[in-house]
């Protein structure tokens, strides 16, 4: 009756595939109104007046004066208003909310905003204000550069990326009895709960948030649902009727968060035989108009900025700044894909400068168990950079293809990467997540706030519990994430759910098993009455972190990955077509191999989109291509076969050895594809690698060292 390690089908799979699952837009309530958001169109300025150019009979109209609590979207810094009062900081800010029972009447209503424009800040390098700045230091940088024979410099850029979950953001707010219940497509019910309590000025128990089946998240439904839920709740409380607020694709793309654009600069000192002696890295992220999650995105980005390499002398300096653009937010990888891109293209450039093979260079510098990272963290026995690298090189026949394809229109490149599992630094301690397990007559019911959004939470958590209790999987139920019924297990983000929440549930199940003492659940319940076991997070022994100095164990453990990308360059159109990706990941233990592989396959495709296709075009701070017609994501024909190998190196404190997996696959494809294009002789240093960019970028001359390399 083993469960863990088996590719059991997902619990809700057939309901989804037969169209029976109910997503938020599939729900309706008696008397329900539809909601609409009126937004600014200027990136910066002041709102002077709002004019309603329609007959307001039958409409519910809400502005900031209707907010009973605080006009903020409560998250990290409470700087973002739920509805604009006067200051306008980006072009998609919500100003006014309308609701009506007839959608056509709702959308026919016209509202004029009178605004006084101001000069916007659109270039992050010219921004006068930072949401966060940090420095990570190790050793002595000057000494490290003095030991080097070569210094390689480079600047790397990545653009915004839109999540494109296929189900747009949406919620329904239902009022009643001085309380409000919000049903919605969301990742973090307790984030929404916290934001609603602040906005509505209601006691905790008067606010209830229920996650409905969610059609993809990728970070895009981490913080933004707090805004939509607030809007729908305000309309519902004012009208006294349920209000559905579901964005169409255009509004979702234009107004919701994007991956932070980045500019990363590297100076790397290296000896002639390929030992890296110094790394100086500067990270700049564009946070957009409000803070949202930017400080933590910057942290994770900087903590991954060295790539998975050992170096005695390191300085990483990072800043995330304000611009008058829609706020950047969480997106799978959370800062790491940007900095790993820079690190891994820089690594190939170091190889070019030293004349070393890119695999050999990585092998000699890759982090090994017991090595010390930039924060002083000592790596555990499960660290697997070399294992994934060697497996990927062998599996893809890298060296033979690298030689054979030189001078053709085919290229091959690789990237080596890692990803910290769980919240950064002391984040998990501060979250103090709780999970509970309730004994049921036939088995057990999982009570957690962790959400299923496609990644398999429901199934994998049930597998962990079923394994401990020696139950068939169908006897482990999973309660809907409903803040009135489940404890706060922390947000469903940061590749933390299986490892952290799964770990708590494993402990709950172990205690339950002990209490049962061999009795069946039904007999236990009859003799002793109800039984619910709750566990709260405690850090693994020996883990410590100092937020002030960025010293210590940044993450409890890390997953490791290596991607080999094979591409073809179309000599006429300059399109780069990926033909095959070999993806090797080490994730501790695959609780459900098929689902773990699904994260790698899907994350790799999303990473290929980031590498080659996906480009958010902003004009005067507004997205000019907020449509799937001209913001392109990979289709079946753009996605090559992905050959996935999962390596297991169990993590001592993870449930059955599991670490995180969800985000990591996003980091590899960008640099692997860029390095494959470099193999074709094109000096690309930014994403996405569009045909225009390939056409314009300089050719690499194999005889010359890169221009930014300074020989001592």
């Amino acid at each position, binding site marked *: 009756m083993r469960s863990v390690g088996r590719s059991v089908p997902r619990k809700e799979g057939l309901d989804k595939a037969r169209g029976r699952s109910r997503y938020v837009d599939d729900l309706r309530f008696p008397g329900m109104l539809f909601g609409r958001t009126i937004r600014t169109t200027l990136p910066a300025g002041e709102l002077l007046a709002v004019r309603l150019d329609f007959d307001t009979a039958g409409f519910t109209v809400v502005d900031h004066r209707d907010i009973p609590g605080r006009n903020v979207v409560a998250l990290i810094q409470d700087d973002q208003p739920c509805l604009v009062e006067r200051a306008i900081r980006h072009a998609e800010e919500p100003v006014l909310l309308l609701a009506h029972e007839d959608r056509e009447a709702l959308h026919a209503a016209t509202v004029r905003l009178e605004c006084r424009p101001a000069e916007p800040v659109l270039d992050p390098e010219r921004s006068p204000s930072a949401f966060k700045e940090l420095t990570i230091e190790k050793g002595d940088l000057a000494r490290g550069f003095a030991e080097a024979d070569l210094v390689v410099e480079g600047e790397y850029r990545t653009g915004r990326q839109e999540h494109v979950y296929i189900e747009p953001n949406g919620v329904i707010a239902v009022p009643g009895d001085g309380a409000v219940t919000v049903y919605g497509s969301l990742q973090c019910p307790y984030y929404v709960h916290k934001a609603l309590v602040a906005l509505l000025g209601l006691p905790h128990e008067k606010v209830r948030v229920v996650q409905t089946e969610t059609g993809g998240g990728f970070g895009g439904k981490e913080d933004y649902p707090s805004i939509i839920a607030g809007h729908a709740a305000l309309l519902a409380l004012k009208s006294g009727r349920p209000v559905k607020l579901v964005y169409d694709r255009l509004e979702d793309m234009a107004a919701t968060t994007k991956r932070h654009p980045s500019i990363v600069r590297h100076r790397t000192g290296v000896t002639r035989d390929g030992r890296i002696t110094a790394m100086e890295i500067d990270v700049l992220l564009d946070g957009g108009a409000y803070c949202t999650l930017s400080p933590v995105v910057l942290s994770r980005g900087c903590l991954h900025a060295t790539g998975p390499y050992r170096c005695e002398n390191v300085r990483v300096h990072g800043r995330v700044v304000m611009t008058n653009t829609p706020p950047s937010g969480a997106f799978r990888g959370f800062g790491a894909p940007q900095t790993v891109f820079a690190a891994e293209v820089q690594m190939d450039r170091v190889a070019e400068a030293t004349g070393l093979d890119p695999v050999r260079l990585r092998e000699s510098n890759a982090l090994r168990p017991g090595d010390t990272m930039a924060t002083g963290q000592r790596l555990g026995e499960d660290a697997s950079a070399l294992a994934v690298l060697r497996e990927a090189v062998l599996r893809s026949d890298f060296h033979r293809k690298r030689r054979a394809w030189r001078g053709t229109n085919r290229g091959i490149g690789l990237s080596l990467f890692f990803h910290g599992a769980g919240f950064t630094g002391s984040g998990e301690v501060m979250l103090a997540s709780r999970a509970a397990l309730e004994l049921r007559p036939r088995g057990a019911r999982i009570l957690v706030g962790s959400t299923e959004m496609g990644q398999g939470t429901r199934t994998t958590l049930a597998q962990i519990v079923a394994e401990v209790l020696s139950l068939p999987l169908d006897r482990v139920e999973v309660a809907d994430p409903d803040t009135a019924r489940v404890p706060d297990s922390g947000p469903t983000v940061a590749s933390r759910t299986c490892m952290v929440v799964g770990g708590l549930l494993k402990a709950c199940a172990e205690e339950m098993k002990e209490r049962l003492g061999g009795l069946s659940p039904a007999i236990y319940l009859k003799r002793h009455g109800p039984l619910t076991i709750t566990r709260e997070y405690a850090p693994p022994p020996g883990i410590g972190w100092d937020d002030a100095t960025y010293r210590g164990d940044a993450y409890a453990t890390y997953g490791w990955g290596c991607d080999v990308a094979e591409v073809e360059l179309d000599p006429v159109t300059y399109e780069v077509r990926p033909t095959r990706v070999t993806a090797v990941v080490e994730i501790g233990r695959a609780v459900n191999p*098929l689902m773990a592989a699904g994260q790698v396959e899907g994350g790799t495709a999303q990473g290929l989109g980031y590498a080659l296709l996906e480009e958010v075009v902003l004009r005067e701070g507004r997205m000019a291509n907020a449509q799937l017609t001209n913001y392109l994501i990979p289709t079946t024909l753009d996605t090559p076969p992905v050959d996935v*190998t999962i390596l297991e190196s169990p993590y001592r404190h993870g449930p059955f050895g599991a670490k995180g997996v969800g985000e990591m696959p996003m980091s590899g494809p960008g640099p692997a594809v860029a390095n494959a294009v470099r193999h074709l002789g094109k000096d690309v240093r930014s994403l996405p690698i569009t045909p225009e960019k390939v056409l314009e970028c300089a050719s690499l001359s194999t005889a010359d060292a890169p221009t930014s390399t300074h020989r001592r």
Partner: protein
Amino acid sequence: MRFSLNGRRTDVDAPPLKRLLDVLREDCLLTGTKEGCGEGECGACTVLVDGVPVNSCLVPLAHVRGRRVTTIEGLRSRLPEALVREGGTQCGICTPGVVMAAATLGPRPTAARVREALAGNLCRCTGYAGIVRALAGARAAPPPRVRRARRR
């Protein structure tokens, strides 16, 4: 407006230019057909009209007068089981559309044929790997490998 819906004669009282997608979801209460983009790009709203897959967000009701409309609720197929078994559904919002688009593939299609037939169905979760495995078979699209990492 009269048409055949999942094999039954149906008469819907709705404006002729109302999107078929909205008619199905709101007037017929069949919510298995999903809206992903409303511009014919994502394929989540795929249904069959006279056996041919169409994006129901681009089709006005008047267009299906007297024709046969099949939605996920009316499709008899084992494709859903195959998709679940091979990891071809994750968040699931695109899956009914994928099933409908794939319903017109003959038996044992090649991986290339599957990719071509589903080029109008966007999936953001799976990278299409599980979908191709489910429809073209494991030989055409091998499943992932799991092995113990060597520690050193």
